[in-house]
C-alpha cells in the first residue's frame, strides 16, 4: 500500500494519520478454505450492516448531520466486488459510500468518526457521510455530484496505464447516473483509451423516488456497452460469491488486457434514499419481498448449511458487534477538528474578508 504513498504528489500532501485508521480487515487476503472465505465476506457485510444501523440511530439522536445514504441491502455488491481486488487497486464511488469504504479496508472507527464529524474520521470530519476517502487503502471517495466521479475513476485508471502499475480501478454508481453526461464521457474515454477499469452500475431500481422505468428508455442498463464497444455483464447481487466471481472476470479483463467492462449489478436498498426519505413510492409488499433476499442473511444461512460451526459464527458476530460498539465509542470520544484545519487544506492565499 506504500505504493500509493509513493505515487502521491508530495509527502506534505499526506498528513500523518492515526494508526487506528488502519485497523479492520485486509479485504483481499484469501483464507485457505472456501467456507472461511465466505465467512470473511459475511463478516464484512455484517460489519457494514451494523455500522449503518448504528449510524441511523446516531442520526436520529442528532449526533450525525447532513445527508446519510444507507447501503443496507446492497452489501453484497461492495463486499463481493472489492474482494476481487488487490489492496493497491483503486475504488471510486458515490455519496452512498460506507459499504465500499469498509469493504476496501477502512476501519469502522474511521467511518463512524467521520459521520460524527470528528477529527479522527477518515476525512478528519470535513467530508462527512458522502465524502469518505482513504489514501492508504486506495479509496478515492465518496462523491456527491451524480456522474461526476465516473471521469475521476477513469482518471485513476488512466494513471495506472500511464505508469503501467498493474492496478485496476472499480467505479460504482447508481442506475440514475446513467442518464447524465459524466457517465457517457467517462465510459467513452475509458473505452477509446482501453483503460483498466470496471464500471459497476448498482441498479437498485430507484433513483430517489423514481423507478428505472421513468429514467431510461432501455431498462437493461448494460445495453449501453454496445454503443461503446466494451464488454458487459448483468446479474443479481443476492449471492456475494457470485458478485465476487463475476466482477472478478471483469477485473481480470482490466488487469490482463487493459479493457473496461460495464457491469450492471441488480440490487435493492432496504432503506429510503437518505434518512429524510420515507420511501412512499414503493409498497410494503415490494420491500418485504426483497428483504427475503437479504444478501447478509443469505450468506449466514449458506455458512450454517456449509457446516461453519455455530460457536465460530457466534464468535464472529460478537467480534463484529464489539468492533461496531468500539467504533461508536471511539467516535463519541474523539475530538472535533479545530478551525486551524481549514486553512492548510485549502489554498494558502489570504482570506478575502
Amino acid at each position: 500500500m506504500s505504493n500509493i504513498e509513493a505515487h502521491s504528489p508530495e509527502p506534505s500532501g499526506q498528513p500523518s494519520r492515526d494508526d487506528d485508521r488502519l485497523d479492520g480487515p485486509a479485504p483481499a487476503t484469501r483464507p485457505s478454505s472456501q467456507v472461511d472465505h465466505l465467512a470473511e465476506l459475511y463478516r464484512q457485510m455484517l460489519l457494514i450492516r451494523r455500522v449503518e444501523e448504528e449510524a441511523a440511530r446516531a442520526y436520529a439522536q442528532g449526533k450525525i448531520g447532513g445527508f446519510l445514504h444507507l447501503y443496507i441491502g446492497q452489501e453484497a455488491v461492495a463486499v463481493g466486488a472489492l474482494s476481487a481486488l488487490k489492496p493497491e487497486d483503486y475504488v471510486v464511488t458515490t455519496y452512498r459510500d460506507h459499504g465500499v469504504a469498509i469493504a476496501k479496508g477502512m476501519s469502522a472507527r474511521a467511518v463512524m468518526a467521520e459521520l460524527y464529524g470528528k477529527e479522527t474520521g477518515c476525512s478528519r470530519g470535513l467530508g462527512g457521510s458522502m465524502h469518505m476517502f482513504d489514501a492508504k487503502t486506495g479509496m478515492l471517495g465518496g462523491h456527491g455530484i451524480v456522474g461526476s466521479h465516473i471521469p475521476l475513476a477513469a482518471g485513476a485508471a488512466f494513471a495506472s496505464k500511464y505508469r503501467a502499475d498493474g492496478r485496476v480501478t472499480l467505479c460504482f454508481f447508481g442506475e440514475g447516473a446513467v442518464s447524465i453526461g459524466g457517465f457517457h464521457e467517462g465510459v467513452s474515454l475509458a473505452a477509446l483509451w482501453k483503460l483498466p477499469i470496471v464500471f459497476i452500475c448498482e441498479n437498485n431500481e430507484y433513483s430517489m423516488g423514481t423507478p428505472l422505468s421513468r429514467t431510461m428508455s432501455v431498462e437493461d442498463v448494460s445495453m449501453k456497452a454496445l454503443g461503446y464497444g466494451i464488454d458487459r455483464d448483468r446479474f443479481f447481487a443476492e449471492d456475494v460469491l457470485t458478485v465476487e466471481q463475476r466482477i472478478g472476470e471483469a477485473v481480470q479483463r482490466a488487469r490482463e488486457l487493459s479493457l473496461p467492462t460495464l457491469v450492471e449489478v441488480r440490487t435493492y436498498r432496504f432503506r429510503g434514499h437518505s434518512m429524510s426519505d420515507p420511501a412512499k413510492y414503493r409498497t410494503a409488499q415490494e420491500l418485504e419481498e426483497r428483504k427475503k433476499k437479504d444478501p447478509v442473511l443469505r450468506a449466514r444461512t449458506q455458512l450454517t448449511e456449509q457446516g461453519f460451526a455455530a460457536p465460530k459464527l457466534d464468535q464472529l458476530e460478537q467480534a463484529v458487534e464489539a468492533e461496531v460498539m468500539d467504533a461508536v465509542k471511539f467516535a463519541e470520544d474523539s475530538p472535533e477538528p479545530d478551525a486551524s484545519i481549514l486553512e492548510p487544506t485549502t489554498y494558502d492565499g489570504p482570506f478575502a474578508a
Partner: protein
Amino acid sequence: MARVLRYREALREAMTEEMERDDRVFLMGEEVGHYQGAYKVSEGMLDKFGPRRVIDTPIAESGFAGIGVGAAMVGLRPIIEFMTWNFSAVAFDQILNSAAKMRQMSGGQFNCPIVFRGPNASARQVGSQHSHAMEHFYAHVPGLKVLAPAFPADAKGLMKAAIRDDNPVLFMESETLYSVKGEVPDDLDTVPMGKAQIVREGKDCTIVAYSRMTHVAIEAAATLEKKGIDVEIVDLRSLRPLDEDTIVHSVRKTHRCVVVHEGWPYGGVGAEVSDRVQRLAFDFLDAPVLRITTLDVPMPYNAKLEQLCMPQPDRVVSAVERTVGKNRAS
C-alpha cells in the same frame, strides 16, 4: 386581507396560479412530480396539473435545462427546478451559453422566457459540494436576471413576475427558508424585479442583505439596537438587475455600509455592492464598506466548523460596530 404562508407554499401558489393562467407554463425537474418535490415545494402539483405539465426528469441537468431553453425559444414558458442550485454546475454551459445568449445572438428573434429555480447556498452539514451560493456566478452574466427573496410575499410576487418575464430568470430559494412564515396579501399579483426594499429604517449604518441573510441582518439589528446603534436594512430581493439607487440613497443617509451574504467573498455580489457604493456614495462614506460572507474555504461537514464559516449575526454586529467606530480621517 392577508394570509400567513410558508415560503414553500408561497412559491407553490405562484407557480400554480401562473400555470392556471397560462398553458404555456410547465414545471420540470427531478422528483417534482410523484415524489412531490425533494423539498415539497411542488407538493400536489402533479395531481392538479397532470404529467403533461409537471414533469419528472432523469438526472440530466444540462439535458433538461437545454430542453427548457429550446422549448422557451419556440414559445413555451418553462419552470426548471434544480433539486438544489449546486447541481446547476453541470448545466452551467446551458445557462451561460444558451439561455443568456439566445436573445442577443439571434438578433432579438428568440428570447428565452424561462425560470430556473431551486434551493441555494448552505443547508445543514451537507458538505462542500452541496453548499454553494451559486448566485455569485450567475449575477455576473448579462442576459440573466437573478432573484433571491427573503420573505414569502416577495417569493410569491417575484416568482409570478419571473414566470411572466421574457428573459431567463434564476430564482434562488433556500432550504432553510422554506418553512419560514410570512403574511401574503390575498390580492398580491407580481412584485417588480430590480427593486430592493428597506425592511428596517435606521440612521447609523446600512446593512445590505438578501435571502436568508436578510433574517440574519434583522437579528443583528436587534442586538445593535440594544447597543444604541440604529441600522437600516436594505433587502435586495433582486441581484441582477441590482437596485443601486435604493442602496446608494440609504448609504448617503447613513454614511456607512456592511454587506452580508452567503457564499465566498472574492468577486461576489458583495464585491459588486461594495464597488457601487464606494463609487456612487464616495463623498458620503465615513468608513469603508465591509463584507460579511461565508469564509473563503470549501464548506466543511463538521457542524461547528460549518457555523464558523457561515455569516452569523455576531459577525454582522461586530462589523457594524467597526464601521460605526471608524471616522474618516481628513
